[in-house]
C-alpha cells in the first residue's frame, strides 16, 4: 500500500497525544498527579498539539478537505466515520480536563477518565479501519488494533517520562508503566512480523478463477504505464531495506528508550546533558514510530496486485 505521508504523520502524532492522555489517566488512578504549573502546561500543550496537528494532517490526503465534516455521518457502518466522530468527541472532556487540571479543581479526574476512554475508542477505530479490510491480509488480523493502541500508549508514556526528566520531578509508578508498555510494544510488533509471513487464501488462482485444474500465470498487464491502482495499492520495498528499517524501529522506539530509562543513573551526571539526552531519546522514538508506520503501509500487499503479476499476497 502507498505510504501516504499525511496518514503516517497523523497516526503517529495523534496516537502519541492520545497515549499521553491514556497514560495520565492510569497514573491518576493509582497516584496523585498534581505537578507544578510548568510541567502541567507542557503536558497540556504537547498532548493538545500532537492530537490536533495529527488530525489536521489527516485531512491533507483528502481530495476535498473542505467536505471533511461529511465524514461524521456514517458511523453506523464505517470505521473511518466512527474514528472522526470519536476524535471530535474526545475534545469535549479533554478541554474541560485541561482547564480544571490547570485550575487545580479535584473533579478534573472524571474528565480525564472520560477523555481517556474516548482516546482509546479513537485509536481503536483507527486500528479497526485497517483491520476490517479483508483485501489487505497484512492488516486483516487481530494484531493491528492492539498495536495501534500499545504504540500510542508506549510513546505517550515515554513522552511523560521524558518531561519528568526535564522538570526533574518524579511520578509514582511511571517508571514501571513506561518500561512495561515499551516492552509490550516491541513484543507485539515482532509477533505481528512473524504472523504476516503466512500467505492469504487469495491467490492468482482465485483472482482469475481458473486455478482449479490449471496453472495460471501473469502474461501481460492492461497497459505498459502506471495507473491509480498500481501507484496506490502496489508498492514494493526490498527485503534488505525493510529488515534494516525494522531494526531501526526496534532500536529507536523500544531498545534505546528502555536503555535510557533503566541506565539513567549510571549514564549521566550533568543535569543539562540529562535533559538534552532525554529530549533526543523522545525525538528518536518518534522517528522510529514513523518508520514503523511507513513499514506498516509499504509491506502490506493488496489483493489487487494479483491482477498485476503477484501470485500470492
Amino acid at each position: 500500500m502507498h505510504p501516504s505521508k499525511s496518514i503516517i504523520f497523523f497516526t503517529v502524532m495523534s496516537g502519541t497525544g492520545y497515549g499521553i492522555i491514556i497514560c495520565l489517566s492510569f497514573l491518576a488512578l493509582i497516584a496523585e498527579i498534581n505537578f507544578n504549573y510548568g510541567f502541567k502546561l507542557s503536558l497540556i500543550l504537547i498532548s493538545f498539539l500532537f492530537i490536533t496537528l495529527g488530525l489536521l494532517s489527516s485531512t491533507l490526503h483528502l481530495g476535498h478537505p473542505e467536505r471533511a465534516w461529511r465524514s461524521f455521518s456514517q458511523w453506523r457502518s464505517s470505521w473511518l466515520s466512527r474514528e472522526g466522530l470519536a476524535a471530535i468527541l474526545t475534545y469535549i472532556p479533554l478541554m474541560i480536563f485541561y482547564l480544571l487540571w490547570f485550575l487545580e479543581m479535584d473533579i478534573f479526574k472524571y474528565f480525564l477518565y472520560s477523555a481517556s476512554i474516548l482516546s482509546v475508542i479513537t485509536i481503536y477505530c483507527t486500528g479497526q479501519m485497517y483491520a476490517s479490510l479483508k483485501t489487505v491480509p497484512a492488516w486483516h488480523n487481530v494484531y493491528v488494533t492492539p498495536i495501534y493502541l500499545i504504540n500510542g500508549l508506549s510513546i505517550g508514556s515515554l513522552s511523560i517520562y521524558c518531561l519528568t526528566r526535564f522538570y526533574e520531578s518524579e511520578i509514582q509508578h511511571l517508571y514501571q508503566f513506561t518500561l512495561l508498555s515499551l516492552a509490550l510494544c516491541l513484543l507485539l510488533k515482532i509477533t505481528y512480523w512473524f504472523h504476516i509471513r503466512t500467505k492469504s487464501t487469495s491467490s492468482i488462482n482465485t483472482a482469475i478463477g481458473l486455478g482449479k485444474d490449471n496453472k495460471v500465470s501473469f502474461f501481460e498487464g492492461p497497459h505498459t504505464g502506471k495507473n491509480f491502482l498500481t501507484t496506490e495499492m502496489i508498492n514494493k520495498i526490498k527485503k534488505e531495506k525493510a529488515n534494516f528499517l525494522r531494526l531501526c524501529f526496534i532500536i529507536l522506539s523500544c531498545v534505546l528508550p528502555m536503555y535510557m530509562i533503566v541506565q539513567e543513573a549510571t549514564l549521566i551526571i550533568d543535569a543539562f546533558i540529562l535533559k538534552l539526552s532525554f529530549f533526543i531519546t523522545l525525538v528518536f522514538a518518534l522517528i522510529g514510530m514513523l518508520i514503523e508506520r511507513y513499514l506498516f503501509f509499504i509491506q502490506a500487499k493488496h489483493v489487487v496486485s494479483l491482477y498485476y503479476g503477484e501470485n500470492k499476497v
Partner: protein
Amino acid sequence: MTSLPAKQNKKLGLVIDLDICVGCHACAVNCKEWNTSGHSSPLHDIDPYGDDPTGVWFNRIHTFEVESEINGSKTVHFPKSCLHCSDAPCVTVCPTGASYKREEDGIVLVNPETCIGCKLCSWSCPYGAREYDEEAGIMKKCTLCVDKIYNENIPESDRVPACVSTCPAGARSFGDLGDENSNIFKLVEERNGYDLMPEQDCLPTNKYLPPREKNNQFKNDALNSITNDNDFSFDTWKEIIEDASK
C-alpha cells in the same frame, strides 16, 4: 445511505465469456469514450501525450497464461471492471455516504457532490474497480452506463453498457442476474459461470465464463499417426485432413 440496501429488486450486471474474448481492448476504449462525456465526465488524463501518461479508466483488459494437462497452454484475455457486488465493502466503508448501492437495480455508484476523496473505498475493493480522479479529487467508477441503459433518447437496442454494445466478438452480455428466467442467468448456469475471489465474500454480481474444454482428440490422433508411421508422406497427411473435415 452507506449501508447496503436490504433487498435488491434487480441485479443488473455483466457476464464475460473468457472463451470468446480476443483481448482487443475495444470495450475499454468505448467505456472511456462514453463515460468521459456522461455521468462521470470528464475522466481526466494526466500527461496524456507525455512520457508517463495515466488516467481514469473503468475497464481494463489483463492477459494470463493458463496451462493444463488436457488443454495445453492457452492465452486468456481477462477484462475487468466493477462487479457491482451484492455485499459491496466499498459502500459500507464510505464515511460520508457518497458511495451507495441502488435498491432498484443493484448498481453501485458514487455521489460526486459528497465524496471527500479519502480513497478508503478503493482500498476495500479486492478487484481494483475504483478509480480516483486526481484532478477532480473524487472517486469514480463503472456506472454500468446508468446514463445509457435507461436513456430514452437512444434506440432501445442500444440501451446496454458501452462495453457490451461495442464488443466485436460478443464476449460480453448484460442483464438481470437476479432473474432466474433471464437469458443471462441461464447462460451462467449452462456454462458454469463463476465469481472472482469468492473468499473475499463480496458476492459479486458480474460472472465470468471459463474457456471451453479443447477437443484435442483429432490433433492427438494425427500426431500419433505421424510419429508412429515411418512411411509418412504428404498423401497420408492429406488423407487425415480430408477425413477430419468430412
